[in-house]
């Protein structure tokens, strides 16, 4: 959505500016946000409230809209305004047009309408007095309009000569023309309704930050944070504090802020002889320091809208004493989170101060309440409410009105899926933007990291923007810190709404496993899947019962424009066979070796040791390093075993058999195990300081490793580049082979295999003689799988992907003489058609045909079993309901499936063609065979699929004659 926030000033001190910046900073993560101001462009200071760089600021030159030369018309307008301010003579309905023209001349209005319509905003929000002007323009604007009030009703209508002074009649005419008028509290809403008859809506302002640290309730200090102006009641404060000081001689008062009344107030304090008790701090950009050092917050304002300072005070755990005015009682609960003495009764104010000052227990209690109350003002809450409002405004369509409830429900239930689809539909692809994800945001590691580092080091790629997907910022602190200072590197949280935006709009996508199922690749995007290792144990559809679980990865690969392979062995095993990409993959397999292996050709030993040191792992420079890197074990990838006993057993074995003066041991657990242990807070035990965290790049580690102890992990392939020794430790071989299966016979490994710890101990005692007999095989496997590793893989891959250069070793999998048939048979519930389908499978010659089945209904046990029993030669693409669709598409699809109608609603055509693309990538098919009711097969009906002919259960036999 294109949102415009129109205010007079933004780069200035003040609550309104802060709230607007705060909200805009959040909104810009999902929308295009422009802030339009009447300031000179050189007033820009984004440090002030930390305005995000992505927010556009439009500096309006008011001279363009207003003619300031002193013409008679100009003078007349000036006169009207002055007279009205003085006596309110134009404040009546009949004269509205005169006053309106004086405030906002007709010609100026026309220029504004033209300008705003040109910008093509979806939503325009205005603050303060501009709401009235927007109201005058509203009927002629294409955008939806929202007025946003930042002070209480009285502050806007009862203060001489500011905001809406003596303009009630105008308000009554023009505010209702806005789509929404937002006020701060229920009291304002009541007043607008009752006094002016204007309907408004309440949106509470959010707190401006979150603080881990809280105040010290023992501190004997009051705090005030305010501008030095009349409205803030500093004179009342001095009077009350003088009274307080008569009864107390310990407490101090800090006042931060400055303003016009500074000199007067300071003089007043002197006159009252309390200057040694009051500490005038002036303006500070570290207010936190003062909040943390005080225990009670004071706010003697004469009027306030929705004071941000109270929310800040609450966030730090400070109870607040304020006069009972405006909406104060909606924020402060009297006697719970503070005191609300009667308005402007200085004695009562002083009494409240004394009470709180002299009752430690009460202070502590109120402090706790304040912290608890602070949660009500969370920014996330406010943002979601605003978003909700935008939704409502933007969609007044018929379909939305009819199905509002279902749509909103869907939106709430499938946040990621709907968000993703919306970005795909509404946002253009951002050129020169690269997104990197490694193991679902585990960190800046593996192949994506290697490519990233390469691109960062090259001048020619300097204008690219890089987005890293990170799951846990804390875990990746060091790397993030290192790259934070580059303005073209951005970090985005995994599976957040920002993540949806990133994967839907980045031009280049680099992943080493797969994106979630709600990722839909767009035609304009370029997707490079680097994978994360040469296969050793079974992977993909080769794993027993892996069907649905691997479906998403297979679809990801089909969608990739480029896949990286370490060599022909990997291309064949992993891509052609395991993921069954042979015949239908239309992208390019880049047999260039893994980018991460470039690390072996650079010497970064000291840097890596330093990095380890900072993770708490201290290695000695002159000792050789033994690395034990076991893979994960267990039933499911998502819930691996975290049994530490076997690992400690190995540690003991190693320690007993090596010369500790020469060797040192470190352990790197499989990243999913590490993650799981962190999630469930499983401790690594007494030897915690030899466990390398998963955020550390494995290949950096391998590059400094002298002896590798591996098990079933494919890590050893990379390690062969170093020509150093590798040992295998397979204590649970039978178990593992049964569960997962290996592509490789144990005898063919490039190093000795130990089935128990005694054997391993033997090997360790004399490593060189243990590995001696395996040299020949070592060389052979190395030449097979490390053929392309020469330290320049990144360069070759980057040239192909970003420069469009011809790849050096491309492999194409789509060359075939087989006839490619796409089959759909629903969830096999339609019994007679299911019989035909079985018949079809029996009679079709797999040597002549390439069969792809779209499998649905795998959540149903019976269907799942049937899918499982299908011949392995059939390629099954699983279509699960976790697809990306907008909320309206979800509901519409649902309605359509349940209805009798055969005609695809227009709304769904785009969705169906997107889905078909998501499922099959760029694959081409010659024929389609449908063994179910045609309607259920959405791609056919969306007419987007291009094949020679579509067969059905009645005429499929003709296929055999092709």
């Amino acid at each position, binding site marked *: 959505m294109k949102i415009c926030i129109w205010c007079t000033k933004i780069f200035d001190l003040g609550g309104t500016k802060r709230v607007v910046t705060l909200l805009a900073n959040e909104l810009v993560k999902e929308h295009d946000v422009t802030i339009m101001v009447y300031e000179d*462009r050189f007033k*820009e200071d984004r440090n002030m409230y930390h305005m995000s*760089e992505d927010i556009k600021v439009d500096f309006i*030159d008011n001279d363009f809209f207003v003619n300031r030369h002193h013409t008679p018309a100009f003078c007349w307008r000036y006169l009207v305004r002055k007279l009205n301010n003085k006596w309110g003579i134009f404040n009546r309905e009949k004269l509205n047009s005169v006053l309106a023209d004086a405030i906002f001349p007709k010609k100026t209005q026309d220029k504004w309408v033209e300008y705003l319509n040109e910008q093509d905003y979806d939503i325009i929000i205005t603050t303060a007095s501009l709401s009235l002007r927007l109201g005058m323009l509203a009927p002629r604007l294409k955008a939806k309009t929202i007025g946003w009030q930042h002070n209480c009703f009285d502050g806007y209508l009862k203060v001489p000569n500011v905001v809406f002074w003596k303009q009630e009649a105008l308000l009554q005419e023009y505010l209702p023309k806005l789509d929404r008028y937002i006020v701060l509290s229920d009291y304002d809403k009541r007043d607008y309704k009752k006094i002016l008859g204007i309907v408004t809506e309440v949106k509470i302002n959010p707190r401006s930050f979150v603080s881990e640290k809280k105040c010290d309730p023992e501190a004997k200090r009051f705090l005030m944070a305010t501008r030095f102006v009349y409205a803030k009641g500093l004179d009342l404060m001095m009077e009350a504090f003088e009274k307080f000081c008569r009864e107390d001689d310990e407490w101090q008062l800090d006042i931060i802020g400055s303003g016009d009344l500074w000199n007067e107030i300071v003089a007043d304090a002197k006159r009252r002889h309390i200057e040694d008790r009051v500490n005038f701090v002036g303006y500070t950009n570290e207010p936190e320091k003062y909040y943390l050092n005080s225990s009670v917050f004071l706010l003697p304002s004469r009027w306030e809208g929705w004071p941000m300072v109270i929310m800040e005070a609450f966030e730090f755990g400070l109870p607040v004493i304020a006069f009972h005015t405006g909406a104060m009682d909606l924020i402060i609960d009297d006697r719970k989170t503070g005191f609300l003495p009667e308005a402007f009764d200085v004695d009562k104010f002083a009494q409240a101060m004394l009470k709180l000052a002299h009752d430690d227990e009460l202070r502590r209690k109120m402090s706790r309440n304040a912290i608890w109350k602070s949660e009500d003002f969370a920014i996330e809450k406010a943002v979601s409410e605003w978003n909700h409002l935008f939704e409502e405004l933007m969609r007044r369509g018929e379909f939305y009105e009819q199905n509002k409830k279902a749509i909103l429900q869907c939106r709430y239930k499938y946040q990621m899926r709907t968000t993703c689809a919306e970005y795909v539909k509404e946002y253009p692809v951002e050129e020169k933007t690269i997104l990197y994800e490694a193991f679902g945001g585990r960190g800046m590691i593996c192949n994506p990291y290697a490519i990233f580092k390469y691109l960062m*080091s090259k001048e020619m790629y300097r204008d690219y923007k890089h987005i890293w997907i990170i799951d846990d910022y804390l875990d990746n602190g060091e790397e993030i810190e290192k790259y934070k*200072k580059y303005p073209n590197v951005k970090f985005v949280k995994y599976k957040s709404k920002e993540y949806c935006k990133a994967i839907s709009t980045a031009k280049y996508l680099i992943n080493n496993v797969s994106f979630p199922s709600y990722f839909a690749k767009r035609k304009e995007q370029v997707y490079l899947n680097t994978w994360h290792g040469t296969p050793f144990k079974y992977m993909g559809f080769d794993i027993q019962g892996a069907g649905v679980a691997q479906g998403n990865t297979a679809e990801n690969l089909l969608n990739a424009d480029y896949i990286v392979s370490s060599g022909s062995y990997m291309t064949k095993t992993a891509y052609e066979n395991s993921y069954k990409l042979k015949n239908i993959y239309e992208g390019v397999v880049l047999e260039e070796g893994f980018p991460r292996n470039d690390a072996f050709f650079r010497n970064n030993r000291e840097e890596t040791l330093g990095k380890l040191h900072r993770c708490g792992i201290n290695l000695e420079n002159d000792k050789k390093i033994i690395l034990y890197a076991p893979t994960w074990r267990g039933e499911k990838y998502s819930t691996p075993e975290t049994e530490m006993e076997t690992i400690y057993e190995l540690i003991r074995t190693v320690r007993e058999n090596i010369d500790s003066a020469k060797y040192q041991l470190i352990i790197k657990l499989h990243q999913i195990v590490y993650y799981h242990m962190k999630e469930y807070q499983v401790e690594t035990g007494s030897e915690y300081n030899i466990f390398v965290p998963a955020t550390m790049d494995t290949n950096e580690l391998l590059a400094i490793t002298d002896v590798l102890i591996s098990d079933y992990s494919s890590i050893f392939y990379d390690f062969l580049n170093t020509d150093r020794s590798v040992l295998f430790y397979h204590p649970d071989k039978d178990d593992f082979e049964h569960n997962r299966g290996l592509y490789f016979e144990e005898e063919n490994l490039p190093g000795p295999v130990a089935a128990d710890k005694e054997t391993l101990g033997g090997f360790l005692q004399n490593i060189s003689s243990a590995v001696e007999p395996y040299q020949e095989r070592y060389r052979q496997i190395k030449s097979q799988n490390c053929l392309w590793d020469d330290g320049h893989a990144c360069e070759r891959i980057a040239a192909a992907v970003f420069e469009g250069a011809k790849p050096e070793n491309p492999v194409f999998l789509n060359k075939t003489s087989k006839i490619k048939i796409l089959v759909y048979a629903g969830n096999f519930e339609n019994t007679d058609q299911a019989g035909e389908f079985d018949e079809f499978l029996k009679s079709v010659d797999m040597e002549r045909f390439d069969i792809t089945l779209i499998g649905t209904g795998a959540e149903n046990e019976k269907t799942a079993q049937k899918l499982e029993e299908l011949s392995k030669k059939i390629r099954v693409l699983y279509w699960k309901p976790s697809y990306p669709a907008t909320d309206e598409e979800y509901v519409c699809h649902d309605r359509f499936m349940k209805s009798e109608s055969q005609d695809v609603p227009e709304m769904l055509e785009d969705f169906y063609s997107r889905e078909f693309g998501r499922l099959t990538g760029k694959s081409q098919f010659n024929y389609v065979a449908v063994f179910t009711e045609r309607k259920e097969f959405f791609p056919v009906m969306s007419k987007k699929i291009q094949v020679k002919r579509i067969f059905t259960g009645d005429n499929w036999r003709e296929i055999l004659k092709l």
Partner: protein
Amino acid sequence: MSRLTGKAKKIFGNIKKVQREKGTKAMMWELWSTVTYVLYDKKKIRYIKKFPPKMVENRILFETNDDFTDNGRALFDYLVKQGYNKKYEIVWLVHEPGKYKKYETENVKFVRNFKKNSSIRRAEAYRYALTSKYIFYTQAFNWIGMSRKNQLFVDLWHGCGYKANKKNRKVFFDYCLIPGDIFIKTKMEFFGCTSKKLLPLGYPRYDLMLKGSSRAAEYSKKLLEETDSKKLILWMPTYRHASSERLNEETLNNEFNIPIIDDKQKLLELNTFCRENKILIVIKKHYLQIPYDFGDNVLTNIIYLENRDLEREDVQLYEFIHYADALVSDYSSVAIDYLLLDRPLGFTLDDYKEYTESRGWVFENPLEYMPGSHIYNMDEFEQFLLDVKNEKDSYIEERAKVRVQTHNVCENYCQRVLDYLKL
């Protein structure tokens, strides 16, 4: 009423201060300037700001801190050389236009910026600032206080060094030049602007530094011959005791206010060492630095270079740098600039710790970005001199590494800036 008397008080206080510091004559000038300002310029300025005159589409305005030097001068010379003055009108705001008569050619104008012998700006300066389409300057142009929609304010800036500025500062510009990407983040925070406004295009003066000039060549040759030396080493310490209080940093406290050299004895020792090894050290004074106090004819192989020397010889500092065989610096931007020449660098770091505490650094590990001898004491300094003499240079690789990170190397820096601005 009280506001008026307050203002009057302030003005008289200022005039008295001038008398105290600069004498009666200067006071009279100041008084004259103030009176004419109040009578004429003030109203004029207010009027032209409210109703700005029509903009001159092809007017380029230059202002540099030290008149007619640095990046502004480099870019100006390039513009004239390439004949841009046929298409554009080029205006310089300077203190004393009479001095620059000889540079006036077609469409080039020098305009008095301030009232004579005073620091009060003339309405004329405002008029030119408000009617120029392009405005180039090297420090800040905040005095103008407003901008017009189609104007382009380009801050050529005066260099990015190692020092961080904890306090941020408001500076007017649409674009500001920096040497390379690594400075974007810190400068962004310093100015509070977006990264799009910071252009990592390098500085126009790099062209001067990379090419040199015949005048500068002669001058450096003269210096070498006079002292019978073979190698010229330029030493450019950052200012320590400045005349401006705002910028003063007292981290070094020794007799001469220069790093490493603690007392007279050491300085004479260094002089002897240089003479023996036929090395000439030229110390360039920072323009904010208070002059050092030395007797005559004591130092043979260590000489001071002041702005007026350069002015006399009509040589730009960056042209002169081209003829230095090596550079000694501390945390100043010139060290970054000098990387482009790929010659030996020495860094004096004796107050590194104090600096870390008082100001902080642009880089996380500033030492990693100092690819040259790290000099903490006299012995290391002499070793560095010997290395230069023997042409022993073991930092080539390191320099290349840092250069890649801090610069975007190109052939013609002036043209790149002009291309970007589509001039």
